[in-house]
């Protein structure tokens, strides 16, 4: 292993890797993140590698195993360069065909190309796929060039150039001014200006300071931090190094949850490699800057994503938040000045230092700059990780990138920001992805989860789901959060189960407002957001539940009845056989009947009936 002691050494490694790459005629990129492995990419990689060896193509074809490329719905995928050809849903058994035909002869296999769910056409080039077209991929784009196990790959993409530039004579104050000018805001949720945070930590007295990378991502349905840390851990490390140099810290921690074993592994390997190269440790790149990073594993508590709880967890105590009247930039980890930033925030830093604040600020809105990775899930055709420039309207994300509603239903709302965020109704879809615009609409950016809901989703049920999640994940330290969430859940459950009383709606509102202001930590303060935003935009659904004893979306079991439409029923008997509760009776070729007393409203008959004869009211 060479020791990198000067910026020139990075250049040498870069030319070496480029030389190696130029020898290969073809590059096959197979992503192997957690999401990819879940759909079977590991077996595919083994099969492709064996097939390449069998056909004697190991010299000709370079196989690169990378982190997730974003289009999780289509995984496992193979990206072939040159040509930018994307093969989707490739199974291990297809390896022989792909290697012998595409790798050997250069044929394009139609059956593996992406079939656009909107137009039905096969699309050959990855860059032509509508899912990717409307995106501005700044961070995710790098994933294809980097094998997370190889520091050389990262250096070849221009990695560690930024820290070399910084250490060659940029003053900490200049870095902070640059980050401030770039307008980078914390990607973890609240959107606090990163430059200001660094400045406060830089100015805080004390000779021992810390930087922490928050990878304790806990929102249901959000996984961009995991993906970034898995796919390009060195970028995060480099960002932390620059931040540490700017604030004067010599020690950093990556706090990552135990439920992300691959992210833990990749981060540890990356740290090990950086240490071997001398990029972490004493006198980095010949300067007098010393810095080391350690991985701290969390137990997976949602509350440990809160800054003070995270720090007490690293200290080895129970992960509970404390009062933040004195900011963590002054008294954080072990009461020393500490800068805590999200994975995505750190990952954005190297490119700001390399390309300048102007370049970074050229994308985005007045108050939110750069790009944001969102985890698009729910009732849309294309799901996955989406990176868009700030300011992109929600409509573009849902309809252009997401491809619109999945089952032909009407899209009703998106839920942004996970349990701490809120629901934004369809009529406000022209809102841009912007910290302040989302906040004003009663939601928040959060870490970037985006769940699309169609008209078969009951908003009372959504509020109930998130309250249940928060009830489990509240640390229980303060009364408004612990008891308040419990009582809100009690009220919402009452409403969903059909014994809601009219006076409970204003009570719910009042209680939610109290919890939002009086709770101890940021999580408690944002916990009522799902309730407040659904009350704000979907109050008619609440009143329908309470006054009309109806669930307009047909979700709340206590308020709906299943019936068979006599005109549509053909008497085929499929529902009768499929009903697990024996609640459907009827003779062949005659209209069937559901016994409302026996019916458990499980919905199996609806999914089985081919004639849409079962109605829910």
């Amino acid at each position, binding site marked *: 292993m060479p020791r990198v002691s000067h910026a020139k050494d990075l250049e040498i490694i870069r030319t070496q890797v480029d030389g190696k790459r130029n020898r290969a005629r073809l590059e096959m990129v197979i992503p192997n993140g957690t999401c990819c492995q879940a759909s079977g990419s590991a077996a595919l990689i083994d099969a492709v590698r064996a097939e390449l060896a069998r056909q004697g193509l190991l010299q000709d074809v370079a196989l690169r195993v990378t982190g997730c490329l974003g289009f999780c719905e289509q995984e496992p995928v193979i990206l072939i360069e040159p040509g930018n050809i994307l093969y989707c849903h490739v199974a291990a058994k297809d390896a022989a065909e792909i290697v012998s035909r595409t790798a050997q002869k250069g044929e394009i296999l139609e059956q593996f190309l992406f079939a656009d769910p909107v137009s039905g056409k096969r699309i050959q080039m990855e860059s032509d796929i509508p899912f990717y077209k409307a995106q501005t991929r700044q961070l995710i784009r790098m994933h294809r060039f980097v094998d997370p196990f190889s520091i050389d790959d990262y250096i070849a993409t221009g990695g560690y150039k930024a820290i070399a530039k910084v250490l060659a004579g940029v003053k900490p104050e200049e870095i902070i001014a640059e980050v401030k000018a770039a307008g980078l805001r914390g990607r973890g949720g609240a959107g606090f200006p990163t430059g200001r945070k660094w400045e406060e930590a830089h100015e805080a007295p004390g000779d021992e300071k810390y930087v922490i990378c928050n990878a304790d991502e806990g929102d249901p349905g959000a996984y961009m931090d995991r993906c970034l840390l898995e796919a390009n851990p060195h970028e995060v490390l480099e960002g932390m190094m620059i931040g540490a140099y700017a604030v004067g810290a010599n020690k950093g921690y990556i706090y990552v949850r135990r439920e992300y074993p691959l992210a833990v592994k990749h981060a540890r390997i990356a740290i090990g490699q950086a240490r071997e190269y001398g990029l972490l440790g004493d006198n980095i790149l010949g300067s007098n800057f010393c810095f080391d990073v350690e991985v701290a594993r969390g137990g997976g508590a949602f509350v440990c994503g809160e800054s003070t709880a995270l720090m007490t967890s690293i200290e080895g105590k129970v992960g509970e938040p404390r009062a933040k009247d004195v900011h963590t930039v002054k008294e954080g980890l072990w009461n020393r000045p500490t800068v805590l930033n999200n994975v995505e925030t750190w990952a954005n830093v190297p490119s700001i230092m390399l390309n300048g604040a102007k370049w970074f600020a050229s994308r985005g809105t007045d108050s939110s700059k750069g790009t944001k990775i969102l985890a698009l899930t729910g009732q849309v055709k294309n799901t996955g990780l989406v990176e868009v420039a700030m300011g992109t309207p929600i409509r573009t994300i849902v309809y252009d990138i997401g491809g619109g509603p999945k089952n032909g239903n009407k899209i009703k709302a998106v839920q942004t920001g996970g349990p701490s965020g809120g629901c934004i109704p369809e009529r406000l879809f022209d809102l841009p992805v912007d910290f302040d615009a989302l906040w004003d609409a009663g939601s928040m950016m959060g870490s970037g989860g985006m769940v699309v809901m169609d008209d078969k989703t009951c908003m009372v049920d959504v509020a109930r789901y998130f309250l249940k999640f928060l*009830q489990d*994940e509240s640390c*229980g*330290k303060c009364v408004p959060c612990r008891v*308040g969430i419990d009582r809100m859940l009690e009220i919402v459950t009452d409403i969903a189960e059909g014994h809601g009383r009219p006076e409970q709606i204003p009570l719910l509102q009042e209680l939610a407002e109290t919890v939002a202001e009086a709770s*101890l930590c940021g999580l408690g303060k944002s916990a009522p957001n799902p309730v407040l935003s659904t009350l704000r935009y979907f109050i008619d659904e609440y009143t329908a539940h309470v006054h009309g004893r109806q669930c307009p979306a047909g979700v709340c079991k206590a308020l709906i009845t299943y019936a068979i439409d006599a005109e549509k029923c053909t008497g085929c008997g499929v529902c009768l056989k499929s009903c697990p509760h024996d609640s459907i009776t009827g003779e062949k070729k005659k209209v069937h009947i559901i016994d409302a007393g026996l019916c458990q409203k499980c919905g199996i008959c609806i999914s089985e009936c081919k004639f849409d004869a079962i109605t829910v009211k």
Partner: protein
Amino acid sequence: MLQYVNVMIDGAPVRAEKGTSVLDTAIHVGVCIPHLCHIPGIHDMGACRLCIVEQVKNGRSKVTASCTLLVEEGMVIKSNTDKILKMRKNIAELLVAQAPNSKAIQDVAVRCGVKDVRYPFRNEDCVLCGRCVRICKERAKANALGFIGRGKDRHIDHPPGRLMDYCKNCNGCIMFCPMSVTPCGGPMKKGQERLCGQCDSQLNADAQKMPGVCVWCELGKGFQCSRYLAV
């Protein structure tokens, strides 16, 4: 040498010892901010949130607990704005619905203006104020009690799950527990819980009409209200 800072509490300029909390300062000068988990001389954890106040800074006000907020030069504190009173009432209502069988909590509810309880009563034995845990740790130096579990499962127990011999049997935990004194009418059985509210008349001064004046109520006498302890 003691250092002092000047703060403004409810419009009154106050000279406060540096390093003390806003709550201690307020009580010292006679502004009675209701509280439950606070014990004078013991570290505060900010659990009950009854002592919330508004801190005005650069024209913006922020709601925070006064027990964990340390006084700073030029600080502006408002302890009884309409917003704070309403939230405090809501929190007291949550507490009394959770554990009506405590004179301390019933008193606090009356003091905070709770007139009716809009939630079903639960009749629990503990509101997790953490007074026992902190007394055990800081005064008895025994560490025989601790919080176990998270969220709904959070409860107080001896950390290994059974009473260890490092408990000094000082009874501090029992003395400082707000549940140790039952309401005047005796313990309430399940289904009979109610808002006691009998001490209402003892609130001889309306906090809203006389801002910044401790009402010097008889409430909380059985519960070592900081004022009673101080005298």
